[in-house]
């Protein structure tokens, strides 16, 4: 199916109108950064819930800039994470399997939550490693390792 982005659309008239809806988000980010420093409390801001006009989102992203870290996660479609020029302020874009955006968040945290391994996964990983080690021991021509 042709995605919306592939439909050629030519916009006439004013395209650089500043609707003034991006600037207040910077104030919210400022409070969130101060809170993270003071108490360690992270913040997520749902940019999809903001009344942005055409160009407002891009204006905000231009203000935030790009930092030195980017990451992608393949789980239920890709998730792209980009640190902004403000350390600790992350742009997290959730996409579906067709690469259409399903949510866009700003996360103010040391590390975005989705990058951290869930504790249940750590337990599963430990069990998996134990099982593989046991299999490896079983297949070792020199016999099981002495404990």
């Amino acid at each position, binding site marked *: 199916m042709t995605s919306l982005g592939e439909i050629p659309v030519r916009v006439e008239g004013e395209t650089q109108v500043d609707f003034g809806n991006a600037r207040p988000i910077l104030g919210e980010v400022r409070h969130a950064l101060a809170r993270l420093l003071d108490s360690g409390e992270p913040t997520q801001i749902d940019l999809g*819930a903001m009344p942005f006009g055409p160009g407002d989102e891009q204006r905000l992203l231009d203000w935030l800039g790009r930092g030195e870290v980017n990451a992608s996660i393949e789980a239920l479609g890709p998730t792209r994470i980009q640190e902004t020029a403000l350390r600790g302020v992350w742009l997290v874009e959730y996409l579906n*399997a*067709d690469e259409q955006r*399903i949510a866009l*968040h700003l996360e103010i945290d040391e590390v975005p939550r989705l990058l951290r391994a869930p504790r*249940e996964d750590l337990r599963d990983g430990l069990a998996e490693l134990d099982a593989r080690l046991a299999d490896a021991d079983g297949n070792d021509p020199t016999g099981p390792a002495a404990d």
Partner: protein
Amino acid sequence: MVKSSATDTAPGSSNETTHPTPSAPEHRGPDTMTLGESLRRNGVSRRGFLKFCAATASMMALPPSMALAIAEALEQARRPSVIWLSFQECTGCTEALTRSFSPTVENLILDTISLDYHHTLQAAAGDAAEHAREQAMHANAGSYLVVVDGSLPGPKANPGYSTIAGISNYDMLMDTVKGAAAVVAVGTCATFGGLPKADPNPSGAVAVQDLIKGKPVINVSGCPPMPMVITGVLAQYLTFGKLPELDEYNRPLAFFGQSIHDRCYRRPFYDKGLFAESFDDEGAKKGWCLYRLGCKGPMTYNACATMKWNGGTSWPVESGAPCLGCSEPNFWDAGGFYEALSVPPGKSGDTLLAAGVAGAAVGAGVGLMARGKAKSAAKSHQTVTVDELEQQL
């Protein structure tokens, strides 16, 4: 670059048989699994699940910080049975839902509810379809959800205007809701009567809430309603097992709590008194407020201004069209779509229009006056000719 893959690392997924997780017992059938188990059985990793919860929080208009709470609740959630009844409707509501541009989230929600009866989507027809409805009602008595789109001829109207399998809409609704936990009316026809109920209402159409007594009715209005709002309401019920907080029209406050006007990105122009006067003047090109072109934003409560349509691409006001007020009661009879709210029908006075220039304070007053005007317009049922329309445009 950090990479992980849902398909090769998902614990408990169907292709991983050697070390199933304790939370995904093999002996459970799909109908008895929790949502968390069901997703992991389908190869969704915990990261994928958390992403799903973050997107679900957005969909439910909850703060992103709720994602973890949603994850915990959804881990234990059970698939509710849903019976979807379509009465006097145009199928636009179902079209909106199935054409949604967030297949990951919406499809997962639809996969995780048990949609046991839906005329348009089910493969079964005739007796087999009606049998499926009866079976779902019997098997899930007291706990299933009934979703209705479309209004229906009331008990005193001729039932012949709308029947399914020889059963009148009225009889089918009353029979089906008997054992339901709650009823979700989807679309303006089901919630307020919509187009079938518009004057002169030849089929005697009524809204679902006019007929249902003693059961909670959640209204998800809109023509069509926003797909994310339909699934958001279902997700909320699925997640928290209880009905959302509702407004005076029984609409979920999370989505209908603020007016289009208050969340509109063009609002700053309204506050400055900058209005487009026609659809192609300089004001229109500069994106000024569409209030004088008939925008019903001040009297309309919906989530279009933030959630937008077509995967967040745009919404009517962003495309230069005034809000028609499609999620409000009797919007078909509320006067001309392109008539400014503050201009009373047939009069040239524009006291509120002048006040509108003064700023935001009048917004609420405009909404209230508009509702009053809508009522009076509905009573007098204004008609308009093509010539008059062309003159106005």
